């Protein structure tokens, strides 16, 4: 089972950008794609524990701020060394001007 959590306002993120969201001791990254779709992934890189929200979003790719590990944030897919483990992704919905992500119940 999962539950929806409001992560931020739609207007908090610019197009083609990313925002860090911390909740219940974990960290997430929320993305707004160039086509205005929203996505959510785990907040830290799978290479080292580095916050992806400091990285660069270009199209549908987030590039880690540390060693340029790249992920497709829609699927979480790791796109090659030094990252080889995919990012966890989370369902996203927009409601009442806010971005909600579905987190698994603890």
């Amino acid at each position: 089972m999962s539950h929806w959590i409001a992560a931020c306002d739609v207007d908090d993120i610019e197009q083609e950008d990313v925002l860090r969201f911390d909740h219940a001791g974990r960290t997430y990254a929320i993305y707004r794609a160039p086509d205005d779709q929203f996505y959510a992934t785990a907040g830290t890189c799978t290479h080292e524990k580095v916050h992806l929200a400091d990285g660069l979003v270009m199209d549908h790719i987030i590039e880690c701020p540390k060693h340029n590990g790249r992920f497709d944030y829609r699927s979480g897919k790791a796109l090659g060394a030094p990252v080889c483990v995919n990012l966890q992704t989370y369902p996203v919905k927009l409601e009442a001007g806010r971005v909600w992500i579905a987190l698994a119940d603890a």
Partner: protein
Amino acid sequence: MNHSAPIIIVGAGHAGGRAALALREQGYAGPLLLIGDEPHLPYERPALSKQLLLDSQPAAACHIGSAEQYLTLAIERLAGVRVAAIQPQSRRIRLHDGRELDYQQLLLATGGRARQASLPGADLAGVQLLRTLDDAAALRPRLQAGQRLVVVGGGFIGLEVAASARQLGCAVTVLEAGDRLAARALPPLISAKLLALHHSRGVEVRLGCQIAAFRGDGSVNAVELADGELLACDTVLVGIGIQPNTELAAAAGLAVGNGIRVDARLRTSDAHIYAVGDACEFPCPVSGQPQRLETWRNAEEQGRHVARSLLGAADAYAALPWFWSDQFDHSLQLAGQLQAAANCVTRALPDDGLLLFYLDAAERLQGACGWGAGNSIARDIKLAELLIRSGKPLPTAALADPASSLKSLLKGVASV
């Protein structure tokens, strides 16, 4: 010549490990042998001066690939084995134990070794170097709260260890012979930021400092300066740079300058031998001048590139130089070339951050250097890399203005 002989990689460090994995990714299915004199799996070194000291992070977190992975991929590993000689004519190497092995092609990824200070007392216990996992394991227990550490050399390794040791509660003094920190790599403005940060966190930094000797009875207990002053200490870390491991190549008659000479494909003066990483000197993609880099990205990217070269690809290695350093809660990143720039534009950032842009006479970006809290400058340095690659003239006023986004500059450049 033996066609079924393996591709042999000498040096199972970062570049060697990456090249082995990349050869399989590129579809090479023939025999492949990775030989290294360290007892470990290939690993990344940056954490040795940072997380590994601070969090006692397990060594496995730095590994490149796992033992199972090398097994599955049929990458044979000889660990703890030293290659003693290369015979290019017969395409054969000799191991330290006298065994001889034929190769089809050879990759030298021998890296470098930490330079030892040529001072009296350098052989005392407690005078440490830092290059390997074993070095880090020997250093870590010496950095208990209350211990006194003297760092010789105000370069990156020395400053990173100083920051880690300080965070662990040690009393730390950094001794640097030059008049500023990390002068070889960094612009003066960033050296000044580094100095201010270290001072503010209680590291004593002495510039223009000459050392006479390490003193102690079996174990080091003081550093003696040229003016006779004695600095009491429990441990000394010598961080005065590395010596590239080029002797094997030189003895085999390969061209060697400040590193093992390679062409743009990373091939040495012998048609069947390639070299990568800290050990090699390759033509700068911009100036064509031979350059040797000692960075994580260079090892990573050259390791991947050479896999393609070994399999016949003709393209030139053209990655931009890039590196980072983390100290306390700050980081710096540098991309491209700073030397030979005609003009430097400074952008001040909130929280004492700083971006420096280096432009040529036609106002095209050549290099950029950033300094700030956390990874705050990472995104801008990535954008700077893309702006460098674009090769387009840039408006300097916009570069200097913290309110103007580099991303929109890039998009503007792209659409011109």
